[in-house]
C-alpha cells in the first residue's frame, strides 16, 4: 500500500515536472528537543541541508506523530515533505522529487560521476543509519536511558510501553534484514571507520575545495553532513560512534564548514 503510493507519485512526478517548487512547502519532523531519535535527527538534518543547498524555501513543522503521518520508507520514514499535492518521505525519494522539479543541485556532474556519487550516498546512508539504529536500540544503556524515554514521551503510560516495544521490534527486524543484528559493537565501529575512511579519501581527491565534488555542493555533501553532524553533536551514554567520527579531523572540519555556511547564517 505504501509503495503503490510511492509509485503513483513517481508517475505523477513526470507530469508535474514543469510546475515550480511551491512557496509553502513544509518539512515534518518529530519534536527536536524532547522526542527525536538519533537516526531520525540525522536524516532530518540531511534533508534540511539538501534543501538549503538547493536554495528552496521550506518551513519546518514539528509533530508528535510525524512518523505515523509519513507515507513510508525503507529506513526511518522521516522526515517527509509536503510540496503542493505531493508527500514524499526520506532522503533519496526527496532528492528524486526535486530532480524532477528541475531545481536540484549536482546536475553539472556527468553521468559517470553521478552514478559514482549515488554509490557513495547509498553507502553513507546505509552504514550511518544502521550504526545509529544499532546504538539506539541494541545497546542496552542507550536504549533504556535515551531511546525508550524519548520515543515514549509523547504517549500516556500504558501506550508508551506498547509503542516502545513495537518500535524496537520493527527496528530489530530492519537490522536483521540488513544483516546487522548479530554484530558486536566492535564490528559496528569497524564498519563506521571504514565508511569514514572512504569519505575522507573522496574528500581529499579535491583538497583545495571544501565540497566532495569540486567547489559546488551535491547530495553527498548533504547526506554526509547530516549524519556526521548528528553523530558528533548528540550526547548519548555511549559515545563510541562520536569518538570514531572525531578521529577523522578532515570530516569534522567539513561538518563545521557546512554548518557555518548553511545553518548559522539563517539564524
Amino acid at each position: 500500500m505504501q509503495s503503490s503510493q510511492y509509485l503513483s507519485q513517481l508517475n505523477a512526478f513526470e507530469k508535474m515536472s514543469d510546475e515550480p517548487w511551491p512557496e509553502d512547502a513544509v518539512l515534518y519532523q518529530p519534536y527536536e528537543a524532547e522526542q527525536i531519535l538519533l537516526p531520525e535527527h540525522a536524516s532530518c538534518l540531511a534533508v534540511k541541508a539538501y534543501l538549503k543547498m538547493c536554495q528552496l524555501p521550506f518551513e519546518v513543522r514539528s509533530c508528535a506523530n510525524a512518523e505515523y503521518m509519513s507515507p513510508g520508507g525503507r529506513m526511518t520514514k522521516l522526515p517527509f515533505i509536503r510540496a503542493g499535492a505531493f508527500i514524499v518521505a526520506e532522503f533519496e525519494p526527496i532528492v528524486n522529487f526535486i530532480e524532477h522539479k528541475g531545481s536540484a543541485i549536482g546536475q553539472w556532474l556527468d553521468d559517470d560521476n553521478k552514478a559514482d556519487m549515488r554509490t557513495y550516498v547509498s553507502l553513507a546512508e546505509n552504514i550511518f543509519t544502521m550504526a545509529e539504529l544499532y546504538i539506539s536500540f541494541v545497546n542496552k544503556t542507550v536504549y533504556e536511558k535515551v531511546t525508550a524515554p524519548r520515543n515514549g514521551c509523547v504517549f500516556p503510560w500504558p501506550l508508551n510501553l506498547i509503542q516502545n516495544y513495537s518500535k524496537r521490534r520493527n527496528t530489530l527486524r530492519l537490522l536483521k534484514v540488513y544483516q546487522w543484528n548479530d554484530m558486536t559493537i566492535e564490528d559496528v565501529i569497524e564498519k563506521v571507520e571504514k565508511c569514514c575512511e572512504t569519505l575522507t579519501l573522496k574528500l581529499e581527491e579535491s583538497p583545495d575545495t571544501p565540497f566532495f565534488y569540486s567547489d559546488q555542493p551535491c547530495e553527498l555533501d548533504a547526506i554526509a553532513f547530516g549524519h556526521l553532524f548528528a553523530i558528533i553533536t548528540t550526547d548519548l551514554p555511549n559515545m563510541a560512534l562520536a569518538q570514531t567520527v572525531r578521529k577523522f579531523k578532515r570530516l569534522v572540519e567539513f561538518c563545521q564548514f557546512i554548518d557555518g555556511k548553511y545553518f548559522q547564517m539563517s539564524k
Partner: protein
Amino acid sequence: MHLGGVLYVYKGEWGLPSIDFDCLRALCLVKFTRCPLQIETNANPIRSSTGKLPYLQIGNKRFCGYREIKKLLDKEGYPIDANLQENYKLLSPAYANWVFTNLHSYYYYFMFGEPNNFDTTRSLYAKRTMFPFNFFYPSSYQREACDIVMVMGGFDPRDKLENHDGDHLIANAKKCVNLLSKKLGKKVWFFGDVFSEFDAIVYSYLSVLFKATLPNNPLQNHIKGCQNLVNFINRITKDIFKNEGFNSLKAIKSQSSNDPLLTATERHFLESEKKTKILAAIGAVVAMGTFAAWRGVYKQFSNSRRYYDGLEYEDDEALEDDEMD
C-alpha cells in the same frame, strides 16, 4: 590453513556450483583465493548454528554463515581483497553495499516471495535437504524473504498477488544492472586485472538470476542484453568452477538407459533415485501391513463382541432368575 577443512554448500544447478546466494559468495571466496578446502554438497542445515548453509568445518570447530567464513579466511592468510590497490580496497565494500541495496530485495522477492516462483525454488532446496528437514528449511527462506521484502520493498509477499508491488524492485534492479554493465566495460574484473569481494558478490547475485529457470523473472532477459555481464558470468562459471558446476539434466541423461521396451512410467521409475525406491517400498509395506492388521483386528473384535454379548445375555437371565426366586 588447518588440514581437512570442509565447506558445506547446497549442490548447484544449471551448470552453477550452487543454487544459493550465500553459498556462491562463500565458494567464490574460497576459489578466488585458492584456499585448499574440500567442498561438500551433501550437507544438512541443522548442523549449522544459523540454520542455513554454507558452513565451514575444521576439526570440531564450525564457522557458520558468510561473514564468519570470510573472517576466518582473512585471519588464515587468504584475504580476498589482498591484491587490490589501497583506494579500491575501500571502494569494493562501498559498491557491494550499493548492489545489496538495489538487488537484494529483488533477489529475495523473485526467488522466494513470488508464489509462482517459490514452487520451483522450494523443490530445488527440498531436493538438496535430507528427508524430514526438507519440509522445514525451504520455507525458512520464505519467512526470511517476507521480512526482507517488507522492509526493503514496502509490501508483504503473503498478501494477495494483486497487491504485490514489484515494479519499483524491477526498475531498481534494471538500473543497477545497467550501471554494473557500464562499470565492467571490457575489463576482466570490476577493478581491472585483480579480483575483489565485489566481483564475488555481483557474480553470486547475477549468475543465479541469469541461469535460474523461474516462471517469472523479468531481470533474466535484461541481463541477456548486457553481453559483457553474460561473458563475466560464463567465464567465472567455466574457468573457476569447472569441477563444481552441476546440471541435473545432464547427469540424468548420462545415466538413464534407453531401452525401447520400457514404458514411460518404468523409465521414470528407473530414473528416480535409489532413496525414493526404498521409501516407496517401505511405504507400500506399511500400507499393506496396516490394512491387514486393521482387517484382522476388526474380525477378532467383532467375534469377541458377539461372544461377550452372548455371555452377558446368559448372565442377565441368570440374574433375573435369581431375583425371581
